[in-house]
């Protein structure tokens, strides 16, 4: 039975190229489908261009949502990636 999980993250920095790439690489380690929701827009975490097109900026809140067998772990890992600034 696939499960669903979600959490919110306040972005410490704009969701620009590098963190978007990190989100894709992180999400790919899980079998669950991971989506990032920002306002009315939803992007699959498989697509870096869709993530960039969200236009999510520093200080904004995004929702990380996953569906699948490892949904809680996927949400946790992707949320951590979003909160990491380099």
């Amino acid at each position, binding site marked *: 039975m696939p499960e669903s999980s979600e959490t919110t993250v306040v972005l410490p920095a704009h969701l620009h190229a590098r963190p978007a*790439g990190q989100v894709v690489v992180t999400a*790919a380690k899980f079998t669950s489908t991971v989506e990032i929701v920002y306002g009315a827009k939803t992007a699959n975490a498989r697509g*870096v261009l869709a993530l960039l097109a969200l236009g999510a900026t520093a200080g904004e809140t995004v929702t990380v949502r996953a569906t699948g067998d490892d949904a809680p772990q996927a949400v946790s890992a992707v949320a951590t990636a979003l909160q990491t600034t380099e």
Partner: protein
Amino acid sequence: MPGLPVRAGYHPHMSGTVGLVLVSHSPDLAAGLRELLRQVAGDAVAVTVAGGDDDGGLGTSYELIRDAIAEAGSGEGVVVLPDLGSSVLTAKALLADHPDPRVRLVDAPFVEGAVAAAVIAATGADLDTVSVAAEEAWHARKL
């Protein structure tokens, strides 16, 4: 990677990822895009460039493309992304002369396709998946 000319330090984590070749009329454009790909996708993906003509001017070079493909080559395959015009034609001619199922010329927007392909390649995706990711970049809206 026996038999392939791998430049020392060029792709430090050379492993089981699909490689990318950027073919551009401009050496600066190809090098700049590669720099961007490194930031977005990290060092795990081999990205090589064939920019400009044989003399370093604007243009395309059959030999530079051939060498860039050899450098990017891993057992997982290579995606070749041309910018436009003669880059496409020269890459096409090269692959017609040297057909290899693991080397694929992909029809994609240069910057967006390269970014999408590099990031997916960094996840360890196969040649088909990386090619599709690049082609899907046609549908990515910026606004």
